[in-house]
């Protein structure tokens, strides 16, 4: 599987070697259980290979002659190659066994309480849409199994039920998922997105709020009334592209219904996919296009072809980065608060309930526990909201510590969903899936489930996967 790129020097292997290797040798390779013919070795053309080979040896000798490099020679990775490796998302493992009888997630079985504790696969359409929306992360264990599947846990059913209710009643679900590292916050969000896609909702996903706040993308001030907000044109253009791609089937049936003040002339009955793609093509016009698209999606549903408006699901991961100061500076050389970024503000308006979704919908944000900025107000707000929901004693903010009031205000009415470990039945369901995928070579019985459950800190699913599949002895 990892044959395409050499992990040591990040160089592509010389194709001549691959092609020269006799097929019989591949067939007898002891470590691979996949059919030898299934993996088609990439064929490369002669001249390209020759050039590469030459480069390889040249730089190698150079490095040795200089005596400087500790890297052991080899071609240095090209620009962006390391990042591409780091961010590469692999959703399949040809060495893992195909799990027979693995159902696909459908709009029906995702709300069915019968499927609690079961694994459900993701169908190709949903998979493509989720991939386009960048819902998968490289840190998740998708690359261990034949095809992506997720566990339907108690919280999944609850969230999907809430989504269904919001769609029916045209209300807005405002939810913040928090919990321990590896507890499945992002995957729960992904399941909500998959369910929304299956229901024909529009899904807008910000995969990483960090990208908005650490100053890696361009920004520019925009006056809205008295206030100055900051627009990130390149990021928004990229987001528009993602929206268009992920919601292609839904948006292609919808047409523009309003007159907008846009910098370029646009056909009046253009489909919303085309509209978003137009915005995605040019960073300079992305923000007006995004606001126009947003107003289209939040317009009340009307009669007529392409005038119906589906509910919208807004999701945002790594909420911690959007709940404090960013590294962007304003004209006074002070750090800009994340809520002064135009895109983040749009999200926060809905999360706080200042703006509602007339066609129903949900905003689901997930916090992160790894490499997160300190955001005490958010932590406190999550705890407070959880205590309020449970009817327990509400914690009080330390009066001697300065509090970020904007964060507390946004979080006021949001539902806090504390994601804890799996139950033992759920753990058993997922471990049976591991075993049937051939990734866990032990008999799944009560004692093994109990042991792994305890080792993973009470069923923290990331740790469960780590201790039973990744760290296999």
């Amino acid at each position, binding site marked *: 599987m990892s044959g395409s790129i050499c992990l040591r020097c990040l160089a592509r292997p010389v194709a001549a070697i691959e092609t020269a290797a006799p097929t019989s040798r591949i067939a007898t390779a002891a470590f691979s259980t996949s059919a030898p013919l299934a993996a088609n070795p990439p064929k490369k053309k002669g001249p390209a290979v020759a050039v590469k080979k030459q480069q390889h040896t040249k730089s190698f000798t150079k490095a040795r002659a200089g005596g400087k490099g500790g890297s052991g020679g080899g071609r240095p990775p090209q620009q962006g190659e390391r990042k591409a490796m780091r961010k590469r998302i692999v959703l399949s493992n040809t060495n893992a066994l195909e799990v027979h009888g693995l159902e696909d997630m459908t709009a029906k079985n995702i709300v069915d309480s019968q499927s609690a504790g079961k694994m459900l696969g993701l169908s190709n359409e949903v998979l493509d849409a989720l991939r386009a929306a960048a819902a998968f992360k490289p840190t998740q264990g998708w690359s261990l199994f034949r095809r992506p599947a997720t566990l339907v846990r108690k919280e999944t059913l609850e969230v999907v039920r809430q989504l269904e209710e919001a769609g029916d009643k045209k209300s807005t679900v405002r939810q913040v998922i928090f919990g321990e590292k590896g507890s499945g916050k992002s995957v729960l969000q992904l399941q909500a997105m998959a369910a929304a896609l299956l229901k024909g909702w529009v899904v807008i996903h910000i995969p990483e709020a960090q990208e908005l706040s650490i100053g890696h993308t361009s920004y520019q001030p925009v006056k809205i009334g008295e206030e100055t907000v900051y627009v990130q044109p390149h990021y928004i253009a990229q987001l528009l592209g993602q929206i268009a791609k992920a919601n292609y089937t839904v948006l292609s049936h919808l047409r523009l219904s309003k007159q907008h003040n846009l910098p370029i002339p646009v056909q009046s009955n253009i489909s919303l996919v085309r509209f978003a793609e137009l915005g995605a093509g040019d960073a300079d016009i992305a923000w007006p296009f995004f606001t126009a698209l947003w107003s289209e999606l939040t317009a009340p549903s009307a009669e007529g072809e392409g005038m119906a408006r589906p509910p919208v699901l807004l999701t945002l991961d790594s909420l911690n980065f959007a709940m404090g100061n960013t590294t962007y500076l304003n004209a006074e050389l002070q750090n800009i608060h994340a809520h002064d970024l135009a895109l983040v503000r749009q999200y926060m308006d809905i999360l706080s309930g200042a703006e509602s979704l007339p066609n129903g919908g949900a905003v689901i944000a997930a916090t992160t526990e790894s490499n997160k900025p300190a955001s005490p107000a958010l932590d406190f707000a999550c705890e407070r909201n959880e205590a309020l929901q449970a009817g327990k004693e509400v914690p009080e903010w330390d009066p001697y510590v300065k509090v970020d009031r904007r964060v507390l205000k946004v979080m006021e009415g949001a539902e806090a969903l504390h994601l804890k470990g799996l139950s033992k039945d759920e753990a058993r369901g997922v471990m049976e899936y591991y075993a049937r995928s051939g990734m866990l070579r032990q008999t799944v019985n009560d*004692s093994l489930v*109990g*042991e792994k*459950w*305890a*080792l993973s800190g*009470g069923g*923290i699913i990331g740790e469960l996967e780590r201790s039973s599949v990744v760290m296999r002895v």
Partner: protein
Amino acid sequence: METRAMRSGFRQAIAAFRSQTKRYPSYQSRRFLATPTQPPTDEIRAAPPFRFNDKQSQGEEDMEEGNSGFAKLLPKLRIVPASPSYFTGKPGFTDDILELQTLLRKYITLPVLPPGEAPRIAWKTHAQYKVQSGEPVKAARYTKILQVLARLNYIHPSVMPEEVKKALEKYKRDVQPFLNKPKPGYVDEYGRARGVGRRKACHAVAYLVEGEGEVMINGKSLSQAFGRVHDRESCIWALKATDRIDKYNVWAVAQGGGTTGQAEAITLAVSKALMVHEPALKPALRRAGCVTRDPRRVERKKPGKLKARKMPAWVKR
């Protein structure tokens, strides 16, 4: 044929005489026997004790009469040592071992305890014995004494003779560490059993209650407390080795040291607490290596070395 008959006749005659003459051991061998045997009447008897303040024994009367009288008595005086092993190299040791061997021979038929169940006794160390006897006894020799002592200690306590008890008393250390019994653990009214464990510089206390396998360490879950899966496994190793993971809940508080030390201190604490709940698991836990405290600590740094053992780099001059 005749010679053969004559030979057998002689043999019988000799045998008839031998049985009478060998009734008592010969004088030489009898002297070195530890067991006092019935001495024959014709044996050389020790002279009566020589008292210097006793006039008669000193022959003062004769002295008064004149020097010639004392001189007359001198040949009669013969001091014989009280112990027959006086002329051996280490008479004290010889006496001791002979005494113990005598006792053992005397009571060899008494019932004994099953192997491994004799009361544990701290016998005097070799150094202490040397001080006591005042003789340069070698360690190997003292081991001989210890072997006899160990055998005598196996005599069933209900039939242990006073004589043996007295003899053993002489070789016991003044302080008997095995009499210090740890307080037996108990399960309190909330169903908790407490165990303490140590490893390296760490100290851990674990509380075990019946439950379903939840673990809390310093107020954190197992996965939050330890990043390494190996350390997490160490923490619940005692439960895993006895197949009890899903039967107990663990609360542990670990202090000091590093992560590995804390994890292994918790192993020991959990196993101690588990032994309170189920004492019969002790052999299984010993096999799993969770009963004995690992006494190793950081080795001290020595002068002339960079660390405990590392030598500074060699320099030509």
